[in-house]
């Protein structure tokens, strides 16, 4: 089973409800994310999957329930420290337009007292990992392609070598060709680094490509949490069945 004890997991939610202007974005959600593996939150837009991700690093705050980080309830005063142990990448990259690539990468490390050569060394290392040409380090985000920007966003998230990566539709804004190339690269990087990865996507094929731990969401509720085979063999309800049916070319001989 894929339900580890909450204390063993990197992150866990216990009956978390989160509302925006009275609307429940997340409704009594409980889930745990195992260390060292890739989990994928999947659902259509508005299902609450991004909200769930944002709750983990305190970008949203629950009205009830607990968010656990390494088995401990998340505290507001510990947020900067928690966030530094997490790399967070969003759809458009979230790169600061007034800083160069290197400036973006250096922002947090410099604040933490790294010297310039240490930052540069780490940036070069990550450029090699993310297949970004070193010459691009001095460019501004506006001078990069969409794919390059997402590589930089991933590099920025990895600067402090955090144990966990949170990715919110990291490839969502890219055209299909670039996207497929990057999917391969990302999966390889995750495998090599052995990080806890929690990724949000609305694409079932992408979800299946990255992981066999899937969490399917709809209207703020977790509908099914398990492996792809479980989804296919015993779908929790018609919604799961329909969702799978909409993505026929899944590995493992779906549908």
């Amino acid at each position: 089973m894929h339900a580890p004890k909450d204390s063993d997991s990197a992150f866990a939610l216990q009956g978390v409800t989160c509302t925006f202007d009275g609307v429940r974005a997340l409704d009594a959600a409980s889930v745990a994310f195992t260390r060292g593996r890739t989990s994928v939150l999947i659902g259509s837009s508005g299902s609450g999957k991004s909200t769930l991700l944002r709750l983990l690093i305190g970008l949203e705050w629950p009205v009830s329930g607990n968010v656990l980080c390494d088995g401990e309830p998340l505290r507001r005063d510990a947020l900067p420290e928690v966030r530094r142990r997490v790399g967070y990448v969003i759809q458009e990259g979230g790169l600061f337009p007034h800083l160069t690539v290197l400036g973006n990468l250096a922002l947090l490390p410099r604040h933490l007292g790294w010297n310039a050569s240490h930052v540069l060394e780490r940036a070069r290392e990550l450029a090699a990992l993310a297949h970004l040409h070193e010459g691009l380090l001095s460019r501004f985000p506006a001078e990069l392609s969409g794919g390059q920007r997402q590589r930089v966003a991933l590099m920025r998230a990895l600067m402090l070598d955090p144990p966990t990566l949170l990715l919110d539709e990291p490839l969502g804004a890219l055209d299909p060709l670039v996207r497929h190339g990057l999917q391969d690269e990302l999966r390889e990087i995750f495998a090599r680094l052995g990080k806890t990865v929690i990724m949000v996507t609305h694409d079932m094929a992408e979800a299946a490509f990255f992981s066999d731990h899937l969490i399917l969401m709809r209207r703020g509720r977790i509908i099914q949490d398990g492996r792809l085979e479980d989804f296919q063999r015993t779908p929790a309800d018609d919604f799961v069945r329909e969702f799978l049916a909409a993505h026929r070319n899944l590995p493992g001989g779906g549908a």
Partner: protein
Amino acid sequence: MRFWLALLFACLPLAALAQSESAAIVHASNTQVAVGSKNFTESVVLGEIARLAARENGVEVQHRQALGGTRILWRALEHGDIDAYPEYTGTLTHELLHGVPPNAGIDVLRARLKPLGIGITDPLGFNNTYAIGMRAKEAEKLHIRSISDLAQHPDLKLAFSNEFMNRADGWPGLKAAYHLPMTARGMDHDLAYRALAAGAVDAIDLYGTDAEIAYYHLRVLKDDKHYFPRYDAVYLYRLDLDQRAPRFVAALNNLAGSIDAGQMRAMNKAVKLDGKDASVVAAAFLGVDAGNNTSGDFWPRLARYTLEHLALVGISLSLAILIAVPLGILAARRRRLGQLVLGLTGILQTVPSLALFVFMIPLFGIGAEPAIAALFLYSLLPIVRNTHAGLTGIEPSLLESAAALGLPPRVRLLRVELPLALRSILAGIKIAAVINVGTATLGALIGAGGYGQPILTGIRLDDIGLIMEGAVPAALLALAMQGVFEIIERALTPRGLRLRAKA
């Protein structure tokens, strides 16, 4: 880091200028004794006569010329910014002192002023009462000889000096006393003559010693109901001068009874219509040397006005930046408080500038300080508003990315938010600077100097050239400010943002 240094350097010249200039201002206002004058020719001439007479008595007195209207001079005298100024008995009985019978004698006035710490000389020798004047030809045609006759012609257009419009012994009382049916509009006294000559208005208020009466061929209407009180010219002075500068008090008292209406009218004409320097005319009257108080050559004079003007703008703007940027940040952080701050600074902006300048006098006296305070208040809104707009306009995903990195709020503000809002903030500072350059010309009304000085004197003397001497540099300075701030903006905007703007 780099552009915070750059911003600092950009501010340094302003700060340096501010420091040197404020030192100069403090130095200037330390001069021991000062005489003031209102912003019309006769008052300025009488101020010069007082200064030169004092000098003959061995007292160096500073003359703060053409400061403004009665209220400003009276307050400045009470406040000690000036120690003496020429006034008229009618103004004292009707405007400044309450419960004094009209045409009260000088002894009654002296007794009333004493508890206020103010002394009064005997009358100087001429009665400069109000009168109503018309073009002689027009008056002849309509058979108007007295003010009573005006009531028969309700369609005549009347324009009165703003002071006359509002004071108890001015238009409201006159209208009631003579049952005049028409309404009047307010107009600067010096401009009113030209409007009258050009036929734009039919009757204006005059002073009995105005030089223009003969020049423009005007008829002075007979005050057949003896409405206007006596306006005997006197000097008011602070009684503490009896200790501080007794010889100055003696000089003022010596002038009593020495100037008749004909002499005063001639001096007014010499300054206003013949373009002579008030100092030269006053010296000729006293039979002394004019000394070196003349306004000097063009270039040094322009340089002085420019420095004074830059000091007003530079100091007020620097202070405004120091206060308004943090206020803008606060406003962006706390929504409720932000609306309050924006609302308050917005209200400040709606206070008419002249009024704001005058409001500052009780707090700061006269001179550069109240002008700087007023300009400071005016500069707040554009900077607060643009700082607020710049910060709240940042894409939420960028703010979130900064937070998600684990940067503390202070670092986020300095490294991410302020740099992203910098363009907007600089644009606000630029707007404030350009507005300031224009508004600062009003500072001359309360003795702050700058380009407003020649403009004010030019209006008083009806001298377009002199007006241009202030108006043209003020316009050029505003343009230069615009240019300088555009260069600063260009230099400080990170290249990455310019790229984005292009894309």
